[in-house]
């Protein structure tokens, strides 16, 4: 697995995801600067990390979505390459049109950082093969604008095509009661049509060791590490 992590000015969880990828894959991901025009040859996975790209003063992810490097990300995705957007990365993916919908201010109007349970959706994707369907995992959330909103048709389509990757839930698996930010259908992450682009608000990269909260986030990186693209 060759991975590249894009750093925008204002990204701040790039180190966390680089550490998670390094540990899961045994390889050092390549760091890409936002002004770069190309991805390294043979890149399998592009990660858009968490943070506050360009300060996020206009709308979260709005300026990053128009950064030079995003054309290369679009091309990569169009060819079926893997793209993972976490938190601010998810916001950038929806702003750039790679994923549908929009992430609005949390319903409680406050930034929330806490441990959060998620229910894993399908597991036949490059991102979730190490989990079991319906598994409840505990990861971290840390966002002020993670309230997923889309029009009724889009939601119906996401549900119909089984493209909801993760839903917020309680430790017992109750989705509605476990929704921290008002997201429609308790959506915490979604796939693109071809399942090669995943955007999610929670931070699996912060849950990769027992010492620091737990290891439920590891599965995502282990899934990616195990993934081999069909020749």
């Amino acid at each position, binding site marked *: 697995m060759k991975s590249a992590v894009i750093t925008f000015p204002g990204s701040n969880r790039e180190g*966390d995801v680089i550490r998670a990828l390094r540990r899961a894959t045994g390889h050092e991901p390549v760091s890409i600067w936002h002004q770069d025009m190309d991805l390294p040859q043979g890149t399998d996975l592009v990660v858009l990390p968490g943070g506050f790209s360009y300060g996020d003063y206009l709308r979260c992810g709005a300026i990053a979505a128009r950064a030079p490097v995003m054309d290369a990300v679009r091309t990569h995705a169009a060819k079926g390459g893997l793209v993972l957007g976490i938190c601010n990365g998810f916001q950038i993916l929806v702003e750039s049109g790679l994923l549908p919908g929009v992430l609005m201010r949390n319903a409680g109007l406050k930034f929330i950082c806490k441990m959060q349970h998620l229910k894993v959706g399908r597991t036949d994707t490059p991102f979730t093969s190490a989990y079991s369907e319906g598994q409840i995992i505990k990861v971290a959330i840390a966002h002020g604008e993670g309230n997923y909103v889309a029009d009724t048709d889009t939601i119906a389509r996401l549900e119909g095509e089984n493209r909801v990757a993760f839903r917020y839930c309680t430790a017992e698996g109750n989705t509605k009661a476990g929704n921290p930010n008002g997201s429609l259908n308790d959506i915490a992450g979604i796939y693109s049509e071809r399942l090669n682009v995943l955007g999610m608000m929670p931070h699996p990269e912060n849950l990769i060791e027992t010492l620091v909260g737990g290891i439920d986030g590891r599965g995502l990186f282990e899934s990616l590490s195990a993934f081999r693209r069909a020749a």
Partner: protein
Amino acid sequence: MKNTPAITPELIAQHGLKPDEYQRILTLIGREPTLTELGIFSAMWNEHCSYKSSRLHLRGLPTKAPWVIQGPGENAGVIDIGDGLACVFKMESHNHPSYIEPYQGATTGVGGILRDVFTMGARPIATLNALRFGSPDHPKTRHLVSGVVAGIGGYGNSFGVPTVGGQMGFHSRYDGNILVNAMAVGIAKSDEIFYAKATGVGNPIVYLGSKTGRDGIHGATMASAAFDDSADEKRPTVQVGDPFAEKLLLEACLELMKTGSVIAIQDMGAAGLTSSAVEMGAKGDLGIELDLDKIPCREEGMTAYEMMLSESQERMLMVLDPAKEKQAEAIFIKWGLDFAIVGKTTDTLRFVVKHKGEVMADLPIKELGDEAPLYDRPYVETPKRPVLDAAKIPSPVSNREALLKLIGSPDLASKRWVWEQYDHLILGNTVQQPGGDAAVVRVGEGPRGLALTSDVTPRYCDADPFEGGKQAVAEAYRNIIAVGGTPKAITDNLNFGNPERPEYMGQLVYCIRGIGAACAGLDFPVVSGNVSLYNETNGLGILPTPTIGGVGVVDDVTKSMSLAFKAENEAIILIGETTGWLGSSSWLAEIAGREEGAPPPVDLVVEKLIGELVHGLIKDGLVTAVHDLSDGGLAVGLAEMAMAGGIGATIAAMPFGLPAHAELFGEDQARYVATVGSKDALDEISRRVSAITATGEALVLMTVLGKTGGKTLTLPGESPISLDELEQAHENWLPAYMAGEL
């Protein structure tokens, strides 16, 4: 030099300079100062920059230890933490700005302290804060809490540093003057620390960061002026924080430092360009010449006076190696930062400021700092309060009821509502989250880590400043011990009232003496600090609040300790002596409704012996949970351990022979509660405790209180309290209060 407008007594007073201080200026420069010079003097000689009321007393603080690399006097303190690494840290107040505009006041407070740390070449890895608000009933309190918490989060979350700990208290004495103390902690290589001292004549002085606007002009002066009811009119001087610019500045500075091109660096904090330039020159025995035409300005038509006093945020000043200018420029451009060469170092020892071809200031650079007024202000000692006899203070409620009320009281209630708004998990190294005794943060890939805490009990400091000062340091020490750390050094943030009033000056003097005594006794020196005076509203001072930020080293974070009960059927032990001390306690204030009596004294010899004992118990794996006892005493400590672990406890009748409420809620110092998993471990602990007593140095007591288990906490003679009931009482108060339901 042009001298308009004329320097009138009114103008001098507006600059916060007393007539004798102005006379000192005239003597020093031998002529009338220009307006720009007057501004420069007022900024350099105010309380915030010159420590003119406190300097004399601060000199008595212990600041040295073999592990101290840099003590007070630089942007932040530096200690050696082993493996070639250094920890750089400091705490600073942003009290007055936060009262006027809570969100921006808090953001710029966090921004300023982060800059102090990365200016020295350290990457920030954690922040903490200590907040004091007025009474919950005061009409402004809710708004201030909401704004300050959002501001601290808004800045730290975006900048990308975890906010891992802090404290928050309420008291009517802060009604018109809240306290916002922020602490930043960074890591650098111990041989790559950067200082403010300029070297070399003719080297370029480079300005880096955000453009200069008119914000915060006279912010540093404002921070040293007492509030009256016209405070609301001071709004325009509040600065606005830009965490994005700060993040760019951080990355650019650290990248630049690696190239070896930085000779000296200083952030522009209070008094902005003035104090940073003067400091660089004065420390290096060099003159500085600034050309203000080169300063990147955000607004048109700014005068020399405004540029010299602007407190626009996210700006740095540095002296660069001229041979590496091009390399530096490339880094500034990469990070999209404004920069300009705005002056040079000279051999004249003069601070010369030019604007539009005219000399606006020409002052002796060393004297600006060295000759600042130094006051030995009159002070009186706070009258000693009587020691209360617990037997004569009957409890008005059952102990069960008192516990539920205490853990749901504003000061002791859970602060989850606050710290869930702070990103405390970013960087993936937060081993122990907010809510415990001290936060534990791993350094890099470990195994080493830092134990971080901020502490002070203003109630005690008000009752007895000397004992209160001692206790603040001792509690920081204890919190670090409780998580398995070795206490190394502290930063002190001294928040007091008007030093021109002998009773408040006395609080400052005796608190400093108490801090000094504890630092010496516990081998826990002060390496950085900040003084905030004139904290009062309409003549009534705040509670004396010397906030202590403590740093300890945890050799192996995988072996750090937490307060949560870990398993059923473990023995619960209390280490330390219980005398049932209710004077100035939380119980007395919250349950009996009285704030009186002498606070509990700290015996520093016992404190250190017990601290070392507990450190050894953790290191050798003899205990499974540890919690130090502070506000609310034993009962609150046990409740916190039970809630954190989701495991209850049953406490047998206690052997102290005191009234039950005094045993349960007394606040005797130097005490820890621990759990022990085996008989062998318990025997070993007893042996170690007896061995200390046998040396004759001090009497150390260990008492078995009961055991863990079940889902209730049962106190002697009381009906069991379910963990759910405890949780509800503990967790509900703050969210309900903030929602306006209380």
